[in-house]
């Protein structure tokens, strides 16, 4: 099954989803498609005004173009998702550095899709790591 992961560029989540036999829907897939395209319209990420229009499918017109541009990357992955794993309080998704509004909208869109979703907190110690992996394992095994 195709599992959407949040944060979408998390290595830990990608690795665990693959380890337990599913396909992760990670951000690299969308970026790969753009940056390795022979037509480079807007380097480095090749996000053009068309993407911002695509973002309109996922966010209203009054939402900043930066958020819509990001959602143009996340949106197609969410559309493909058959299940999702959300990890809250990921240190690197804190504040404007990671675009908090995009993150909120991404989680909202996943929840709206009503696919099986596992919501977890970022682990901070070994006990929590054990619990974190066990929950992901149980969730992914239950999907088969």
């Amino acid at each position, binding site marked *: 099954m195709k599992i959407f992961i949040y*944060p979408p560029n998390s290595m*830990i989540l990608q690795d665990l989803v693959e380890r337990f036999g599913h396909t992760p829907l990670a951000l690299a897939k969308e970026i790969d498609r753009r940056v390795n395209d022979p037509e480079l319209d807007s380097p480095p990420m090749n996000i053009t005004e068309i993407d911002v229009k695509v973002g309109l499918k996922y966010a209203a017109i009054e939402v900043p173009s930066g958020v819509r541009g990001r959602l143009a990357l996340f949106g197609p992955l969410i559309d493909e998702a058959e299940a999702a794993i959300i990890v809250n309080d990921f240190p*690197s998704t804190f504040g404007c550095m990671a675009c908090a509004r995009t993150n909120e909208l991404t989680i909202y869109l996943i929840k709206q899709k009503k696919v099986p979703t596992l919501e977890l907190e970022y682990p901070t110690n070994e006990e929590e*790591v*054990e619990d974190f*992996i066990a929950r992901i394992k149980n969730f992914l095994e239950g999907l088969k």
Partner: protein
Amino acid sequence: MKTRMFVIADTSSLTPQTVINYIVSLGKALNIKDTCYGIMVEGDDDIVENVTIKIREKFDGDIFSKHRAYPIGDERRCRATRGGGARPGYYFLIEEYKLLPQISKVLKEGRFKTLDKKKKKPVDVDILKKAIKEKV
């Protein structure tokens, strides 16, 4: 063409060179780069995926992998042409790198036990009122 990065857990005795030697022994046509956190592998989609499965089988919890969008040495990302500094995306990797030793340990020992988490209830209003009356 697909690029994958392999990150070695901090506590592991595994070295990037050991992983490279293993990949070379598989005899596949791949482009490999040695990095400070592990290695990067580039090649045809099927070959890269096949090698990833074999590396996971061989080194189990010592090594973690993810798909990388940019090719190896891409001028838009490579530090050599961007005037130094960490490449974008490296900060995220650092955050996750801190957690890898613990994840590696759990995966290797096969300890998959969930904790019974009870949500902390907020303090009752009456208790708070009583405490305020007593102290103020």
